[in-house]
Every structure is written in C-alpha cells, then in structure tokens.
C-alpha cells in the first residue's frame, strides 16, 4: 500500500470514529420541537432552588441515585461491609447516571454524588427487620460511610410506612 493510500485509509477510518457526544443541554433543546425532552430535567440542569426544601442550590446537581432495590424487601442486619456492598448493588437512578461503588471510584469522582438510601425499621417487633428506630440510624450511617468515604452532607430525611414497619430514607451528597 502506498503512503498516500494509507493516509486516505486512515482519514476514512477516522471519519467513522464516534465524534464528541452530542450536547443535549437545555439551551440546545430550547431551539427544537422536542418539547417532551426539553421540559425534562437534564443531569446538568441548573435548578433555581432545591426540590426538597426550597433552598438555593449552588452549581449543577448530579442526578440522584437510589442505592437500593425498589420493593419492600426485608432488611438484613448491617455488617461492617454491608454498606459498601449495598453501594455495589445495582443502584437505580432517578435521572440517568452511573453509580460506581465507593470502593472502585476515586474520591474526586464521588464528590457531589447524590444518593438516596433507606433501611427498614419497626416501632414494635417485626419479623422483617431487626432494627428499632434507634438502631436503624447506625445502619444508615454505615451505608453512608460506604458510599461517601470522604464524608457527606445529609439534606433530607423521611419515613414511609411499609406493612407494620417503616422505611427510613436519607438523601445525601458526598463531600
């Protein structure tokens, strides 16, 4: 193969390589007829205030990642490693995002990651959870430590009934 043919082949090959990711920010979609997508939140949308408490939020949000499987599965006692293992389970994202287990991700990648975690607890006695309202907090902190080894800011907390028990939810952001 001559040099010029080789150059031509390389040029053609290069032209078939994927280009830069197509920017799909709000301002790009504002000039299109894709209204369904335009009104959806993007991963880098700049919210004027935080959804949960109405406070001003600085900078871009990372998407919220659910660090648990949906459904009313019974809780298992948290062990020293269960929090990290929980993060490694297939987390579900509220907005498209990639959730890496804390152990596998560099600290700078974890900064700003937002998670929703939960644990089941009971106010009485339950076959589905070993946690009381007091002890479930310890289990939640073990999960948070696994997800955010460099620390975290917890900015929302709620409880929702499940059968005779409750799920305790925390929303947190890694520092």
């Amino acid at each position: 193969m001559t040099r010029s043919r080789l150059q031509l082949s390389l040029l053609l090959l290069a032209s078939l390589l994927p280009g830069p990711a197509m920017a799909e920010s709000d301002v790009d979609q504002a000039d299109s007829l894709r209204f369904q997508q335009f009104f959806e939140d993007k991963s880098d949308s700049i919210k004027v205030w935080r959804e949960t408490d109405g406070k001003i939020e600085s900078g871009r949000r990372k998407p919220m990642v659910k660090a648990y499987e949906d459904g009313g599965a019974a809780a298992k006692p948290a062990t020293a490693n269960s929090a990290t293992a929980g993060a490694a389970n297939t987390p579900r994202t509220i907005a498209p995002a990639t959730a890496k287990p804390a152990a596998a991700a560099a600290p700078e990648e974890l900064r700003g990651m937002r998670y929703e975690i939960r644990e089941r607890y009971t106010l009485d006695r339950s076959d589905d959870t070993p946690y009381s309202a007091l002890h479930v907090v310890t289990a939640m902190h073990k999960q948070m430590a696994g997800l955010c080894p460099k620390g975290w800011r917890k900015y929302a907390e709620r409880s929702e009934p499940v059968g005779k028990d409750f799920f305790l939810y925390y929303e947190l952001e890694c520092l």
Partner: protein
Amino acid sequence: MKLKALPLLLAGLALSAPATVLAAGPTVYGKVNASLQKFDMEQISGGQVVSERDDWQMRSNASRIGVKGDYDINESLKAVYKLEYEISVDTGTNSNGREFAARNIVGGLQGSWGTFLFGRHDTPLKLIQEKVDRFNDLQIGDMSNFLVGEFRRDNMIMYTSPDFSGFNLTAAFSPGESAIGADGKEDDSLADSASFALTYGAGTDLYLALAHEQNMASNSSAGSSDITRLVGEVKLGAVKVGALYQTARQHKSEDAIAGVPSGINQFGGSFEKQDAWLLSGEWAATKAIVLKAQYGYSESKPLTANRSDAEATQIAVGIDYKLDKNSKFYGYYAQVDVEGDSAYSTGKPSDKTIGVGYEINF
C-alpha cells in the same frame, strides 16, 4: 383567635399547601456567545453604494437567558413554561435600547398525549432546521442572510404530538388580530396564520423533516408568505451532512414574501417568490475540534414585472474548538454574494466577515 393557636394554624396551612409548589423548581438555562468580527460590507440603492462597513466589531450572537419549569397538576398532566430572553453581551442593550428582548415565551400543558403551548414562539417551520444551519446566529453565516422563513410569531397556539416510532407532528396557528394586509383587508380570523411540521428521528443519526406554513410573517405583522421546507441530516461516525430545500410564495397576489434579507432586498424591494437550498457538513476531527462548512443559494423573483431574479450565494467555513461539553472557541469566515437586475445595480455586492468567538452554554 387565641394567639397560642396561631402557630398551629400556620403549621396546618403549610402542611395543606400543594406539595407541587416545591416539587419542581424552575431551571435556568442560556448561552453567552460573543465574537470579534472583521466586516467588509456594502449596501446599494439606486445603483449607488449608500453605506459601507469596513471595520472590527464585537458582536453578541443571540446570547440569551431562559427560565423553564414544570409541575405536576395531577398524575397525568403537568403545567410547563419557558420564558427566554435575548441579552446583548456586547453593549448591554439591543437596538431598541432594552436589556432583554423576548424570544420564545410560552406556557402550556403536557401529558402522554403531547404538549400544548401558547405564547410567542418560533414557528414549527423555523425549528425543523435543528442544527443543519451550521452557522446559526452568526453574523453573515446564519442562513437567514440568504433565505426567508425564520419567523418568530406572536399569539401562537401550538401542539406537538408525542413520539410515534420516531415521528412527531406539530401544528400551530395564530390569529391575525386585525392586522391589515397588503390587500387592505384585516386578518381577523382565529387561524389567519398556520404552520405544520412532521419530523422523523430528531436527535438521532438520521433526521428528516417536512414543514409548511401558510400566510406567515414575523411577530404580529399581517401574514404574507406560504413556505414549504424540507430538511434532512445524516450522521456517519464523526461526519454529519445536512441539506435544506424550501420554496416560498406570496400568499395573495397583493402580498410580498416577508423577511427578505437586506442584501437581497436591495435588488427589488419586494418579491413574489423565492426558492432556496443549503448544503452543510461538519467533521469532528478530534474530540475537541470540529471542522464545518456550508453552501447556500437562493433566487428571489421581484414583484416588478420583467425584472430578473436576485441570486444570493452563501459560503461559510469554520472551526470549533470545544473546551468541554458546554463551551467552545470558534473561528469562521462567511461571505454572501448577491446579484440582480441591472436596473437596480450593475454592481455585485459581496458581504464578508471573518470572526473569532467564544460560546458558553449553561
């Protein structure tokens, strides 16, 4: 009421307030796009050059700030809004001396059945171009420098269907609100102006779109143009190739097509029809560098009998250097040449610019 009961009452009111108020706050978006331009332009009238421009300028290129948002009315219906304003980052005010100029400002409803919007908005025909105009918003590079149809219309009522296997249908209309047309009659019907678009594959590697609008013009002017536009773009790896064809006609025999670029306008002043096409392409040479080029042509027939068409040709080439997903440096060269009936001018005006700029999207 006892004072002690007041906190309880306030707490009760707070709890009973619709949760949706905070459930989805507004989102801010926009762009800052400014460039340094070297211009070489001239305008003629009566066969004479009446103005020339040969200087450097800083320009704001459709910089804007917008607020959008939505909230759930119920499980199947949400309210949506978009309020977008142009800002001039070069001087702070636009040609009307205002800091903000309304672009697309709409409210509406959205559900699984589609999106309904009302307000001031670009027409569906204008929006089907997506990014086929590679030099959109740039001085002399924007395709509005050689073709018509880039209308933003007041009083629009618009519906866009949900996605049907890649297809989307948009229909819009606006009442004329008694605007007086060239025939001296008022546009006083519910749907004096209308625009329809059918798109396929928006945002994918193969995009096709067809649009037609009837009795259309900018803002709240009396309608005057019937336009049909066809757009296509294909993406093959790092290469994108796009094309646009359109034909514009006067709506009535008394009308002249609206929005004719000034470069063409000097060869007749008013026109009964225009045919135009555009070819464009870009190549992402690396993850950061995009090379792009565009060629466009239009021929416009003057209303005056026995006058030959005004022909406009646009050539533009440019390079983008992406700093990240949301910001880039760019440089480009654009030129629009026009020639028309010698009764208007024997000269062939050629407008040129070379520019370097910076764009931040947020």
